[in-house]
């Protein structure tokens, strides 16, 4: 084990995957010699050469299409989109091509070896083009897996699993934790199974569900609630598509209450999908309406970022309201 921040953990995962799979390439804007604007790909070009780790021209549409082409011919591909806010020029290639390659061709062709990595989320004073959480646009697309790690350990294990998963994966990295999240991470190879949620904390009064950078918000809110005698069960979804309905439903059947937290706007956010499903699965067990603590239905603002964020205080208030319902 070693102390690593999330960027080191991601770098370590990429390095291990490239060592073990000679068909793997890593590319994107500034990822070559510079190592990416956040340095996630530092040193990979030095080790594996410019043919396997390289800068692309500045075109997200081109990066995604090129990645599809490589993967469709059997290569393992990790393509970086510099910020998730800039994934939209690549949207057509990802949602219409990556996601449907296998289905539309009767599996004559597929792009299973493809992973898109991209930093997402706010809390870094980035204004609305460096802060968005666009995961729900992708969870609405059959054929893609969507993964969001919450710390360094997860980032490495989930990224290795994503790279080796035989389906295209969009891997959202919580950029505000890149350097802030430091923890014990095995130096060797390991994977964390996709599609499985993790119960971080057992509780009996309410289930708190989230992913990525919001997990520390939920843990903090759970602490505040505990001080008032409320026992929270805290679950990290980790994979949003396909998501682990069983773990969440089992927890809600026990606690009788569910609160979902995400940074993306409330309307059309992934919390809505979870709430509908859990309502079906757990209708007779629910003791209060399922609560959503999310971003506002506005673009992500700069100066009002603190007000916009679904923070621990707002979550704490919502927990109390659920329990008192």
């Amino acid at each position: 084990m070693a102390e690593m921040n999330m960027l080191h953990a991601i770098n370590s995962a990429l390095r291990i995957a490239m060592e073990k799979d000679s068909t793997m390439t890593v590319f994107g804007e500034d990822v070559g010699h510079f190592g990416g604007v956040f340095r996630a790909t530092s040193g990979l070009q030095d080790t594996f050469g410019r043919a396997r780790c390289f800068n692309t021209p500045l075109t997200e549409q081109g990066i995604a299409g090129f990645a599809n082409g490589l993967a469709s011919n059997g290569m393992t591909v990790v393509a970086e989109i510099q910020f998730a806010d800039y994934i939209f020029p690549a949207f057509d290639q990802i949602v219409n091509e990556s996601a449907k390659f296998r289905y539309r061709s009767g599996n004559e062709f597929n792009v299973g070896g493809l992973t898109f990595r991209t930093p997402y989320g706010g809390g870094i004073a980035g204004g609305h083009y460096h802060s968005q959480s666009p995961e729900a646009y992708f969870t609405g697309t059959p054929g893609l897996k969507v993964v969001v790690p919450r710390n360094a350990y997860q980032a490495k294990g989930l990224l290795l699993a994503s790279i080796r998963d035989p389906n295209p994966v969009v891997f959202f990295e919580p950029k505000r934790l890149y350097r802030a999240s430091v923890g014990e991470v095995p130096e060797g190879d390991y994977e964390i199974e996709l599609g499985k949620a993790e119960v971080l904390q057992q509780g009996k009064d309410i289930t708190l569900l989230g992913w990525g950078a919001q997990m520390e918000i939920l843990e903090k809110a759970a602490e505040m609630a505990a001080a008032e005698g409320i026992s929270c069960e805290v679950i990290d979804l980790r994979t949003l598509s396909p998501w682990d309905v069983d773990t969440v439903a089992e927890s809600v059947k026990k606690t009788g209450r569910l609160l979902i937290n995400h940074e993306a706007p409330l309307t059309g956010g992934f919390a809505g999908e979870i709430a509908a499903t859990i309502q079906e699965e757990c209708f007779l067990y629910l003791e209060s309406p399922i609560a959503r603590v999310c971003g506002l239905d506005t673009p992500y603002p700069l100066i009002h970022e603190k007000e916009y964020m679904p923070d621990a205080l707002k979550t704490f208030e919502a927990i109390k309201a659920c329990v008192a319902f």
Partner: protein
Amino acid sequence: MSNATTNSETVHRVAFLDRESLAIPVLKILQADGTTFEQAVLPQIDEALANRIHDACVFTRVLDERMLGAQRQGRISFYMTCTGEEAAIVGSVAALDDNDIILAQYREHAALRYRGFSTEQFMNQMFSNEKDLGKGRQMPIHYGCAALNYQTISSPLGTQIPQATGVGYSLKLKGQRNVAVCYFGEGAASEGDFHAGLNMAAVLKSPVIFFCRNNGYAISTPTEEQFAGNGIASRGVGYGMHTIRVDGNDMLAVLAATQQARAYAVENNAPVLIEAMTYRLGAHSSSDDPSGYRSKEEEAKWREHDPVKRFKLWLINKGWMTEAEDVALYEKYREEVLAAVKVAEKVPAPLLEEIIEDVYDKPTPLLQKQLDALKEHVKKYPQSYPKTSGRL
């Protein structure tokens, strides 16, 4: 015959073209010592215009120096400089009519200054205070001003390029004798939007000046990893567009090229591409350290081509300015910028209500409900939301 590409001569043995097949000259007028080339045809310029150009350059250089310092001190969160590219930006904007509509990328604040954006307005935007025209929604340097025909900057690269084609076409439909002017870097020219925008402008005959600042780097990526063709100018020709390449550090060359480009665009309702060969002397942004990808020697070499200094020497040679006046101008702006910082950082943030404004023309019932809940929450925990709680 409908295929316009068939007007070629025929040959009878295989002969490919490559990047060198298209020889593209570089327009240069001003020499390093401030004199002009002997054969050079000068742009239309008088003392007043020359001084207005110089003034915008000096202001911008001072602003860059001071605001980078302010970012280092944590007073603003982010900054991007124009340093090294002043001639490309001011030389081009100075050739325009004030009613020509500018769609910039993010490094063209010198053009906004030239148009008359005040020091106070720059500061209000960078400090995201309640006087910011953009209402504190975007990061520092994302300026915009309808009164000055300068559309607000959007971070995603290249999106303004096809938009400029639409703006130009609207000017044509309205019968205005004006153009849209679209700035972008050679990196942004790799985006799909670049192809879409230029192709549509050429086919639909939209009066747009596409102005590429070819400054050598897109963050850390040098031009040789950005494109393999003959720069960006070759593409203008490929799209069937009037095209010119200029020395982007030569104020007079940029001014001359843009004056003629504008006249052509207005007269013919057609686009023009200008590729200005320049160099980004500063970092990509305050979040970046260029020592990780380029040498000090390379930067030093380009400092010898400093566009502001070269133009200043020309002004002095013309007898339109003295060295002492130049020094005094820098001093004046240093004081002005510092004073403006002190004022702007004390102006309060926009009111909490602003958070739901401008999502639509008026807030929807759901947004209003979200604001009401947020206000109650902020009132309950005022110390946790200090920017807005004091003025609920």
